[in-house]
């Protein structure tokens, strides 16, 4: 009897979940429309908008720039964030908690305020509209992601392993490299993937601190959306989502494999 009562919430939940996912994927059918305006394909599928996309120097350069920025930001954030997580984990004092709270701020503060802060400081530093400026900004924004994922891994790490390594005479650097890092690898990897996606999708800060020489994919998408009507923009959106989904999928597969290998 209880099972039957449950049908209604279950059905409603699936409607909500479809509301979450289906509209986001509307770019897929629109990108293969055979018309020249935003519409569903009318009978036949056409790849011409993808051809337009890949033969446009502007879109290609935005694609490459986004990839460079996201890749570099992810590396910087992952290294800095992992080091911080390990350091804070060993500290675990009142001061450590305050530092942790400060490092988490970029996640909490609305991106428009972060954008403002970077914009104001990047002008005198000459970082406006440069790779270095955007990578640095995205790295700071992504740092909390890495801190959270690596800290979660560290919470399951037995600190006696570290003591054992040190008491057997390994210097701290060796302990970190050979004992700590291998056991928190899943957290580091998760942090790297999440920070890549964060930078890859990031638009608000990019709107403020990049103008001409660095013009990321979300930035060009933003401009395209405002002019509307060209399905090439939908094709670009498909590329943007597909990359995010591919990164998520890769992460899930590797995480599954990692948990299987530790189970054995």
């Amino acid at each position, binding site marked *: 009897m209880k099972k039957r009562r449950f049908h209604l919430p279950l059905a409603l939940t699936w409607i909500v*979940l479809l509301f*979450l996912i289906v509209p986001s994927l509307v770019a897929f059918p629109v990108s293969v429309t055979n018309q020249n305006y935003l519409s569903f394909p009318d009978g036949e599928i056409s790849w011409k908008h993808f051809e337009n996309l890949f033969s446009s120097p502007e879109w290609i350069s935005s694609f490459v720039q986004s990839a460079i920025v996201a890749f570099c930001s992810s590396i910087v954030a992952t290294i800095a964030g992992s080091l911080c997580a390990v350091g804070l984990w060993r500290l675990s004092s009142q001061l450590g908690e305050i530092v942790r709270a400060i490092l988490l701020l970029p996640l909490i503060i609305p991106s428009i305020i972060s954008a403002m*802060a970077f914009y104001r400081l990047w002008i005198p530093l000459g970082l406006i509209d440069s790779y270095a400026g955007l990578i640095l900004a995205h790295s700071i924004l992504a740092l909390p992601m890495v801190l959270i994922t690596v800290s979660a891994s560290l919470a399951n790490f037995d600190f006696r392993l570290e003591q054992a390594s040190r008491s057997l005479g390994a210097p701290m650097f060796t302990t970190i490299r050979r004992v700590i890092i291998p056991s928190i690898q899943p957290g580091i990897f998760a942090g790297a993937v999440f920070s890549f996606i964060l930078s890859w999708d990031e638009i*608000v800060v990019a709107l403020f601190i990049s103008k001409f020489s660095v013009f990321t994919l979300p930035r060009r998408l933003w401009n395209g959306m405002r002019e509307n009507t060209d399905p090439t923009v939908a094709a670009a959106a498909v590329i943007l989502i597909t990359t995010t989904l591919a990164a*998520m999928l890769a992460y899930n597969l590797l995480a599954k494999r990692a948990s299987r290998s530790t189970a054995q």
Partner: protein
Amino acid sequence: MLVLPVTAAVALLYIAPIINILFLSVTDPQPGLGNYQKLVESDTLIRLIWTTIRVCLITTFFAVSLGYLVAYTMMHALEGQRRWMLSILMISFWISVLVRTFSWLMLLGRTGLVNETLISVGVISDPIAFVRNEVGVLIGMVDYMIPYAVLPLLANMRGIDPRIMSASRSLGASNLQTFVRVYLPLTKPGVIAASLLVFISSLGFYITPAILGGGKVLMIAEYISVQLLVTVRWGTAAMLASIMLISVLLLMYILNRFMKLGTIFGGDVR
């Protein structure tokens, strides 16, 4: 020794300029509370703040209600279904706000897919205005915010012992009574945490109101960007940013007392 250089870099490159914004709000164009005074004098700013709060409250209400339904069902669904539901939530959590807003624009615009379909089927003769008004902004924001509501609720519901509900039922309470008088009060911390998280995140929304509101629904974030990039008035922008910043940090502090941030996002990492 590991933490120091990174913390110093974040403090210098991020925290310092944010404090500078607070400073600018009382010094630019001239020292004093002139910028804050505008808040009571200017009709535009009053309307702006009111619109922002109204949109955020409505978004919070719908996102948390729908999120509650989803979280509740997930807790009681079979393992296989639950995994699917979680995957969908995570996918939508990670699809960029830009793409999702663009999708809604394609669907709901004047010549969007929904209007075209309804017209060709003959249900309506003139397109319904879904975008360039508050309805469009709300649809986009609620859609984006539901996963943010579900995560804290799930974290909270996971901690509830199902035997409490069995006890209530075995003592003669009906399913509805058990839900209203036992389950709902137990999930109160989750509801509060979810509401605060959604409200905080909505406050700073920029992309969705800018695209789906089409200039008709002006919220604080968009106004700040216009002040900075078009009219270049740092004082007013800094004042609005300071108000937003202080509200967000204050609400975050309250949220943290109900649920540790790590618990919420811990749920999505795993």
